[in-house]
């Protein structure tokens, strides 16, 4: 059968963010995928080198609005490691609480989007309704619904007062009941079973080969979670379990995420109940000594790492961000093969792609001896050449 290329994006009803897919199909079956994720590239890594440690945190939070706390925490954690300062336990607990609340809101958001992609908008409305409870807690604690601005080098900017603590704890039982409802729903709801089971399967071997992280890896039976394997914040002190599954398909990814919702509520409750007394910040020096750190963090979508190099000033010499979506993209191309054209949205949504995190520019040239500067015109010419090459073959 003749091959057809279906272009999707950058503006498309099924897309929430700008991305361009070229789906190669034979009839209704997908045989390949090419993608262009560079529409959201803003140049944040470069800008991070020009702002001091206080001003760079708000910028890094805006790498991605859904996992903004992840980026902020990953960065300040690395800087604190280089400065060799110990953050007060109360700040560590508050960071953990915000991180887990963020995970709950992100996973509920994902569940809604996935339901929307299979045409079941009722579930989309339900999960987003329940998500508002989490947004309320976050707003009470941080003053903002999204982009919380909690982190600062040396601690957190806002305390959780006993009243806020009680208000947050009071909201948790209702949330827990809703999550329990989703667990039941996932077992027997026919729409979900038909559209999720056996769709976009990724075997354990494939998950390892493509270097997947987060729920994408855990749903294929890879037990890998930074919170347990390289504990940070308060995770070493909190009782919780890594959620894994062996399905590997969209259904498995849903099971893992809903399981993580329950674990996150458990962590939040434990942290709120066992919040240590004391300060929320220590005074951090203005300049960081020369050094480097690789700061790893389990974002809602998987392992996020910030590589930070400092040179004795109050600015980072180099910041390199590797986001979970970048690690998971290649696995999408593998799990799409031999699937039905109509399942594209849900298979792509299954890794919970976040493109604003992912748009990055890398020029690889191992033989390079001196630094070069590329102008906007150079880049455009390069893009045109690449496009021509692609058209020819």
């Amino acid at each position, binding site marked *: 059968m003749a091959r057809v290329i279906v272009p999707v994006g*950058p*503006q*498309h*009803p*099924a897309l*929430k*963010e*700008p991305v361009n897919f070229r789906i190669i199909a034979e009839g209704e079956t997908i045989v390949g995928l090419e993608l262009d994720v*560079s*529409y*959201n*590239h*803003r*140049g*944040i890594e*470069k*800008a991070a080198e020009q702002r001091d440690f206080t001003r760079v945190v*708000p*910028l890094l939070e*805006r*790498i*991605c*609005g*859904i996992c*903004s706390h992840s980026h902020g925490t990953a960065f300040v954690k690395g800087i604190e490691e280089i400065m060799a300062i110990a953050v007060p336990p109360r700040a560590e607990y508050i960071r953990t609480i915000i991180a887990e609340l963020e995970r709950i809101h992100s996973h509920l*958001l994902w569940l*809604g989007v996935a339901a929307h992609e299979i045409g079941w908008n009722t579930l*989309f*409305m339900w999960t*987003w*309704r329940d*998500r*508002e409870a989490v*947004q309320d807690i976050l707003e009470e604690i941080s003053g903002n*619904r*999204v*982009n919380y601005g909690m982190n600062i080098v040396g601690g957190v900017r806002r305390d959780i007062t006993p009243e806020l603590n009680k208000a947050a704890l009071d909201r948790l039982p209702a949330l827990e009941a809703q999550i329990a409802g989703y667990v039941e729903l996932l077992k027997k709801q026919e729409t979900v079973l038909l559209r999720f089971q056996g769709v976009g399967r990724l075997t354990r071997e494939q998950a390892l080969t493509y270097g997947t992280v987060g729920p994408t890896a855990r749903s294929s039976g890879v037990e890998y979670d930074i919170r347990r394997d390289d504990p940070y914040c308060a995770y070493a002190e909190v009782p919780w379990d890594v959620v894994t599954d062996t399905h590997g398909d969209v259904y498995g990814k849903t099971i893992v995420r809903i399981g993580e919702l329950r674990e996150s509520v458990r962590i939040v409750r434990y942290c709120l109940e066992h919040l240590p007394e004391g300060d929320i910040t220590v005074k951090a020096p203005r300049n960081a000594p020369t050094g480097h750190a690789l700061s790893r963090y389990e974002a809602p979508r998987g392992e996020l790492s910030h590589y930070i190099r400092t040179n004795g000033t109050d600015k980072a010499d180099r910041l390199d961000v590797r986001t979970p979506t970048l690690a998971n993209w290649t696995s999408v191309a593998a799990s799409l093969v031999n699937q039905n054209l109509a399942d594209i949205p849900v298979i792509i949504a299954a890794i919970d792609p*976040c493109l*604003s995190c992912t748009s990055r520019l890398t020029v690889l040239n191992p033989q390079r001896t001196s630094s070069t500067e590329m102008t*906007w015109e150079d880049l455009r010419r390069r893009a045109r050449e690449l496009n021509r090459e692609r058209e020819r073959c």
Partner: protein
Amino acid sequence: MISENRSLSIMINRGLSQRLASWARVKSPWITIFNSGACNACDIEVIACLTPRFDVERFGILVKGTPRHADILVVTGPVTKKQASRLRRIWEQMPEPKYVIAMGACGAGGGVFRGLYHVMESVSSVIPVDVYIGGCPPRPDEIISGVVTCLNLLKEDLDHGGKAWRTTPASAQATEETV
């Protein structure tokens, strides 16, 4: 004689259909969301507006996938250079009268991304903007207030017979993007 009658009836109908279209536009504006390189925060807050707590459908607002069906274009983010020509093209596809809402601090002037090497100055350097909503990101209630402001503007424009009565913003002369 017949042809005269017909042309008269067409004229009456045209006036009527115009009024009907205007009425429908104010009562049920259709919007399309375009992410021009945002951090997602504005996007999730816009989508939160559609969900049960905020529910903008009570104002008749529907989200449409294509700009060809939309009255209002909601632009999130600080327009990256790669997205600028796409944004312009999306805007050109919209039917008149078209309205543009720029979301958040980025949409107004780059916000935290101001001056980055792959970011335009603002949305208004690519297309003319009618309403700005401040905040990073704006709360859903602020977004709803912004959309209602846009609807009031639409009504006033209908009374004045076009957008010309407003002082022409400098952005109207925005030149074709060089990208």
